[in-house]
């Protein structure tokens, strides 16, 4: 009856949910792939010169983050449903730690999105993505992706708890879908409009994308990696505290 077994039960539940909602899972893979196809096949030839190399190599890390973020955003609606439909209330009247349900959603999101991100990467390889990372750097890529998914999921969880309706919970998907456009995911920072340059150069998404790019090409930049790590740790901590607070506050109603 400790928190751990309950969390495992909840994680299994969330994984089952993901598998039964194949539509969402497929969308989470297809949408980023479609965007990637668009950029690589339609604009690719024009963009090769812009990025100074194969555009598939350039764009893949950004698309992987887009996929991870888009998939993690589903957590917002899932948690909102649990809170608004009385499921969490039932748990709160039971002799268990009800917050385990949030843990379950978050952990399942990390698992689910690592799978969908891997699927997106395989498509990228088919489109000409040629990573040259060492085994250790591959572990770094996986770890960084997992950390990014975790942090993004925690933010989605807080959003879902704060949302007043299903629609506002679902809005997080749009943020996840458009945020990468304000980073170096698709275009190098010096090619972005001036007013975006400052934001795009320093926002955490850019740092994570540049770190992934560095790792994928076998030339990671330690300073960028460090900054990305600090950003993720800070955001993750803030989101975790916010999620916990909002979950407690939801109980007081």
């Amino acid at each position, binding site marked *: 009856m400790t928190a751990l077994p309950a969390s495992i039960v909840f994680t299994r539940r969330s994984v089952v949910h993901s598998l039964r909602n194949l539509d969402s899972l497929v969308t989470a893979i297809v949408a980023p792939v479609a965007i990637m196809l668009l950029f690589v096949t339609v604009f690719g030839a024009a963009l090769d010169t812009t990025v100074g190399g194969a555009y598939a190599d350039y764009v893949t890390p950004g698309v992987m983050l887009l996929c991870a973020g888009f998939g993690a955003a589903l957590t917002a609606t899932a948690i909102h449903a649990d809170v608004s439909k*009385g499921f969490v209330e039932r748990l709160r*009247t039971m002799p268990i730690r009800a917050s385990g349900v949030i843990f379950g959603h978050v952990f399942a999101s990390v698992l689910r999105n690592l799978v969908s991100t891997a699927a997106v990467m395989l498509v990228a390889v088919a489109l000409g993505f040629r990573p040259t990372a060492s085994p250790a750097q591959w572990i770094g890529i996986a770890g960084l992706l997992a950390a990014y998914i975790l942090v993004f999921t925690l933010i989605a969880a807080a959003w879902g708890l704060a949302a007043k309706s299903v629609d506002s919970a679902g809005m997080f998907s749009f943020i996840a879908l458009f945020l990468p456009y304000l980073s170096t995911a698709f275009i190098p920072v010096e090619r972005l409009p001036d007013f975006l340059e400052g934001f795009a150069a320093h926002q955490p998404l850019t740092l994570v994308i540049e770190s992934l790019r560095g790792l994928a090409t076998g030339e990671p930049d330690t300073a960028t990696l460090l900054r990305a790590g600090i950003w993720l740790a800070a955001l993750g901590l803030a989101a975790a505290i916010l999620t916990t607070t909002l979950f407690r506050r939801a109980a007081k109603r």
Partner: protein
Amino acid sequence: MTTRTAPHGAALASDGRPAQPAIAASGLRKRYGDREVLAGVDLDIPPGQVFALLGPNGAGKTTLIRILTTLTGPDAGTAAVLGHDLVRAPARVRKLISVTGQYASVDEELTGMENLVMIGRLLGRRKRAAAERAEELLAEFDLADAAKRRVGLYSGGMRRRLDLAAGLIDAPPVIFLDEPTTGMDTRSRGALWNVVARLASQGRTVFLTTQYLEEADALADRIAVLDRGAIVASGSAAELKRRVGTESIELVLDDGTVVRETTDGDPERLREVLNRYHREGRAVRTYAVKTPTLDDAFLTLTGHAATTEESPR
């Protein structure tokens, strides 16, 4: 400790009264903003009783249930379940209760079986034990055929039954049902009434809220009428009805006029009334004995009629 594992035979004190009330509350108050939802509620419900809290929408029924099930704290007053204080020992209380709300809080993506196994696992059962208990309950609640179907495809009545079954996995001695039949069709309502009767026969304490007078009448040993956050009357259905007045006879005369004569239930009085009409040469076509309904009681006690409209949420 006597009542924790033995809801059937709660210990009796020397005066023959139950030693420990299943649910006790005194002076419960709750305010949301400037709206006083509960204005000092006292309860003393002995173990093994079916207690109905009757009241219209907005009377404070759900708020009272939320306090008694540890979901929210009172602004003032104290409450205890089987002697365990709700505010000081909520974890203790949660082991003794189950709650079935107005909105079946089951997982729609999972099957009925998966739902019950999940709750069983959460309560610390091993896989095998959780599955066995789930099968028992599914059979008991007439859901065995639907065990492998997703709850999203269940009817409203089936969902409520599953929700109730989920609350009974650890066989808690105190069961809260918040408007268990609101929005149900007559047949599902009858099935749920049978379930409540069965729980009562097992010696469990059932605390149910309802806006249906006939439901309280049919199920409850004791009824409390909650109106605007305060209990305005309590007693057995018969007692509440008595408070409204004695029975009456309704006579339809030959010329079609309807008259009502109060009686005290004594046949002599009936004979006397009929004789008087006979003497006066007014022929009586039909007569009917009317006992006061709980509706009459409600009107008398609260000054306004009970609403039976559906909950707006």
